[in-house]
C-alpha cells in the first residue's frame, strides 16, 4: 500500500447515500461543507430497491388522518414503538411527501393529477376498522424514484461525494466523534476525514440471513464499528421477515401486490389469511403474515407440501399489473418463468428489515447508553438507527417515511453543530490501527475463505433465529456463533493486491456480520416473550409486565451485556393486537 495518507477537512461527513443520508446531507449542506461517503455509487444504495410506497395521510383517495396513521404504527409495532417519536413521524408525513414531490419525485397519479395512494399491510381507517389507501407510490419502484430525486437535488446543493469508499473506523474519543477513516476501494489508499459532525446512515444488515431481500452491500458495517467501539445497539432481536420473498431467491415481491388485491393461497388452494386475521386478511402486518405462511408450510400445507405458498394476482387486470407492478411482473417472468397474470407466484418469507440499530433521539443524536446520554458530534438515521418508530414490527411504507423525516431532522440538528463544534482530529494511532487491520487481513495465510464462513453464518442464523425462535435453538446458535466468530477472525485471502480488493471487503464485512449476529442472538435469547417479529415458541405470549422495554446490547469482554429502557407510551395503552 502506498504509505501516503490523504486528509480531508470538512464540516460534516455523512456515511451512506441512501434516502436517509441524502436527506440529511441536503439539510446539513445549508450550514457548511458536507461530504457523503458510500461504498457503492450514490444511485446504487439499497433504498433504490424499495418497491411499494411511502406512507402519508394525504387523504387523496379517501379520508385519512395522521392520528389513524399514528395508531396503526403503534399497534403495528406491537406497542414497542416510542409513541412520541412515531407521532413526530406521522405528523410530518404529509409535508415530507409533498416536499419530495416538489423535488421531482414522479409519484403515480390519480386521474385529477394528485399523488395516487394504495392499500398496504396494517394501514387502516378509524383505528383498525378497515384497510385504507395511505401508501404513496411510484409504480413498484418508489425507492428508486425517491433515491434519484434526492441524489439529483443533493448534487445541486453542492454536497461532495466520495463513491466507493469503505469506512474502516468512526473515531470516537474525549466524549465526542472526531472523524472517519475510510479506504478508497479503487486505489487501496487510506483517507482521513476530520470533521465537526458525523452522520451514520449506512442501512441494514439483512445479509446475516441466508434468505434475504437485502443487497449484497447490506452488511451493517457502521453499526458494528460503533458496537465494537463500546456503544450500544437497541432492539436487535427484532428483525422483520417479509412474507413474500420470491421462492429460493428472497427477492422482494412488494406488499403493494396484496394492496392491489393479491391473495395468498396454500397447497389446498385456500385463502389461509382469513384464519389468521379475519378483519384485514392478506393486509395484516408483516410479522403476522410471515408467521401464517411459515405455519402453513410447517403443517404441510405449502404448495405440493413444499416450502412455499402462492401469491395469486391472476384476478387483477393485466393493465393494472403493467401500470402499478411492472417490476415484479418483469422479474417474476425472468427469474421464475411466471407471468403473474396467468400463474401464481411462489413466495416464502425473506429477511427484510432491521427494526433494531444505533439508538438515537428524535433529532438523530446517537445515544451512548440507556439513560439518554448522547455522543457529541455523532448522528444516525435510517435503517441503521433505532428511534424507535417501528418497535417490534415495522408497517410497510413507514421505512421510506422514517428515512426522509428523520434523515432531514438529523441534518437540521447538525447545522448548529457545524457552526459551534470545534473540528475533530483523527490521531496517528487511530489510522495505524485501521491500517494494521488491513495488513492483518491481507497477510493471513492459514484460514478459510471468507465466503465459506459467511455461508455457515447465514445458514445457522436462518435455521435458529428467523421467524420462529426458541431457547434451545438460540442457545445452540450462540455456541456456534462463538466458533464462527473465531473462524472469521482468521480468514485468509487469495487476493493480496491493494487496488479494488473486493475479497478484502468481503473479510471486513464478514467481521461486521458476525458481530451483529451475536447482538441479535443474545438480545433474542434474553427476551422471554413474543412480540412483533420476535416470536419465541417457548414463550408465545406478549408479556407487557416484564418486557414493555427496549433492549440495549453492549459488547462486554468476549460476550455481551444487555440493559433496558422503558417504552415511551403517550397516547395509546397496550392492548391485544387483533386484525
Amino acid at each position, binding site marked *: 500500500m502506498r504509505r501516503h495518507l490523504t486528509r480531508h477537512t470538512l464540516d460534516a461527513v455523512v456515511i451512506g447515500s441512501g434516502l436517509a443520508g441524502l436527506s440529511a446531507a441536503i439539510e446539513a449542506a445549508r450550514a457548511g461543507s458536507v461530504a457523503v461517503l458510500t461504498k457503492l455509487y450514490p444511485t446504487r444504495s439499497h433504498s433504490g430497491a424499495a418497491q411499494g410506497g411511502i406512507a402519508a395521510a394525504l387523504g387523496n383517495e379517501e379520508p385519512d388522518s395522521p392520528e389513524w396513521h399514528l395508531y396503526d404504527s403503534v399497534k403495528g409495532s406491537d406497542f414497542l414503538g416510542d409513541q412520541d417519536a412515531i407521532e413526530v413521524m406521522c405528523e410530518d408525513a404529509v409535508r415530507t411527501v409533498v416536499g419530495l414531490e416538489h423535488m421531482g419525485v414522479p409519484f403515480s397519479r390519480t386521474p385529477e393529477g394528485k399523488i395516487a395512494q394504495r392499500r398496504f399491510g396494517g394501514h387502516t381507517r378509524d383505528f383498525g376498522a378497515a384497510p385504507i389507501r395511505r401508501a404513496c407510490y411510484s409504480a413498484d419502484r418508489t425507492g428508486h424514484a425517491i433515491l434519484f430525486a434526492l441524489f439529483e437535488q443533493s448534487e445541486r446543493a453542492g454536497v461532495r461525494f466520495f463513491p466507493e469508499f469503505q469506512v474502516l473506523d468512526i473515531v470516537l474519543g474525549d466524549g465526542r466523534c472526531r472523524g472517519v477513516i475510510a479506504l478508497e476501494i479503487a486505489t487501496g489508499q487510506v483517507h482521513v476525514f476530520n470533521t465537526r459532525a458525523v452522520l451514520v446512515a449506512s442501512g441494514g444488515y439483512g445479509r446475516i440471513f441466508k434468505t434475504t431481500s437485502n443487497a449484497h*452491500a447490506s452488511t451493517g458495517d457502521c453499526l458494528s464499528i460503533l458496537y465494537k467501539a463500546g456503544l450500544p445497539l437497541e432492539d436487535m432481536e427484532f428483525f422483520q421477515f417479509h412474507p413474500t420473498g420470491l421462492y429460493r431467491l428472497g427477492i422482494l415481491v412488494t406488499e403493494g401486490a396484496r394492496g392491489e388485491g393479491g391473495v395468498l393461497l396454500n397447497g389446498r388452494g385456500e385463502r389461509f389469511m382469513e384464519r389468521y386475521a379475519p378483519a384485514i386478511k392478506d393486509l395484516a402486518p408483516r410479522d403476522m403474515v410471515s408467521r401464517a405462511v411459515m405455519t402453513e408450510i410447517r403443517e404441510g400445507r405449502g404448495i405440493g407440501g413444499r416450502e412455499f405458498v402462492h401469491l395469486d394476482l391472476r384476478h387483477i387486470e393485466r393493465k393494472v399489473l403493467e401500470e402499478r407492478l411492472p417490476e415484479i411482473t418483469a*422479474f417474476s417472468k425472468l427469474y421464475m418463468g411466471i407471468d403473474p397474470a396467468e400463474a401464481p407466484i411462489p413466495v416464502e418469507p425473506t429477511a427484510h428489515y432491521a427494526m433494531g440499530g444505533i439508538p438515537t433521539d428524535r433529532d438523530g443524536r446517537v445515544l451512548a447508553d440507556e439513560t439518554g446520554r448522547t455522543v457529541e458530534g455523532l448522528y444516525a438515521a435510517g435503517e441503521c438507527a433505532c428511534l424507535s418508530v417501528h418497535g417490534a414490527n415495522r408497517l410497510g411504507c413507514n421505512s421510506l417515511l422514517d428515512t426522509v423525516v428523520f434523515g432531514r431532522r438529523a441534518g437540521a440538528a447538525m447545522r448548529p453543530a457545524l457552526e459551534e463544534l470545534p473540528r475533530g482530529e483523527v490521531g496517528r494511532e487511530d489510522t495505524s490501527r485501521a491500517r494494521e487491520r488491513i495488513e492483518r487481513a491481507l497477510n493471513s495465510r492459514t484460514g478459510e475463505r471468507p465466503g465459506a464462513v459467511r455461508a455457515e453464518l447465514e445458514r445457522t442464523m436462518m435455521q435458529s433465529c428467523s421467524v420462529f425462535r426458541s431457547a434451545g435453538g438460540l442457545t445452540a446458535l450462540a455456541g456456534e456463533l462463538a466458533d464462527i466468530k473465531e473462524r472469521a477472525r482468521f480468514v485468509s485471502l487469495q487476493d493480496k493486491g491493494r487496488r479494488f480488493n473486493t475479497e478484502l471487503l468481503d473479510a471486513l464485512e464478514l467481521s461486521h456480520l458476525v458481530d451483529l449476529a451475536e447482538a441479535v442472538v443474545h438480545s433474542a435469547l434474553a427476551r422471554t416473550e413474543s412480540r412483533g417479529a420476535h416470536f419465541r415458541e417457548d414463550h408465545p405470549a406478549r408479556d407487557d409486565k416484564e418486557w414493555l422495554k427496549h433492549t440495549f446490547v453492549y459488547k462486554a469482554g468476549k460476550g455481551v451485556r444487555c440493559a433496558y429502557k422503558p417504552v415511551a407510551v403517550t397516547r395509546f395503552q397496550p392492548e391485544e393486537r387483533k386484525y
Partner: protein
Amino acid sequence: MTRDYVFRIRRFDPEGEAVPRWQEYALSMEPGERVLDGLLRIKETLDGTLTFRRSCAHGICGSCAVMINGRNALACQSLLGDLPGRLTLEPLPALPLVKDLVVDMEPFFRLNELVMPYLINTEEPPERERLQAPGEQLKVLQSITCIMCSCCTSACPVYWSDREYLGPSALLKAYRFIFDSRDRAEGERLRKVANPRGLWRCHSIYNCVEACPKGIDVTRHITEMKRLAVRRRLRG
C-alpha cells in the same frame, strides 16, 4: 438439473500485469441461475482474486453491468439457461479499465452532470403537490426507470470514437426533465444538449436500445428531443 458451464473471463491485475489475459473456470450450475451467481461462486470457491461489482442482484442498482458474449448486460439479470454453455465475460467497453470486470465509472457520471440532471422549478411551491395528469407523466415514464448502469453509453459506437459525446444515458436524463411537466428549465437544458457534442452526434444506431436492461427505447427519446430542438430552431 445442473449443467456444465465454462466462464471465460477477461482478467486484468493493475498491480502485476501490463495487459489483460483470459482465464477459464468450469462450473456446474442450474440453468435458472444467474451469471452473477456464477461469478459469486467462482470468487467464493475457485478464485478469490476475481473482481467484479455487485449489490442488489435483481436489476435495480446497476452495479453488475458487464459485457456478456459481446452484449452489455446486468449479470444479475442474465440467466444461464438463455446463454450457451461457454460464456465470455468482459468489462464494459469504452470506460477506463480498473481491474478484471471493474471499470472506472467517473467519466460516465461526469457526462450526466452536464445536462443539469435535476428538476428545476423556482416558482413558489404550492401547499400541496404540484398536479401532474397521468397523461403528462406518461411522457417521462420510461425515462425515469433508468438505473444508470451505463450499458447504453458504453455500447454506443459514437461514444467509443468521441468521449466528449454526451451519450445515450445523459441525453435520456435530459429528456427526463425536459419533458417533465413540472420542470421550468426546458430551454436552458435543451441548449445544453442541442449541440454537436449532444443530440446531433447521435446517429440512431440503436445499440443503446439493444443494450438497455430496463428495455428503454433510448433512441426514441433522443429523436423526440431532436424534433423539439428543431421546432425551437436550436441547431447548435
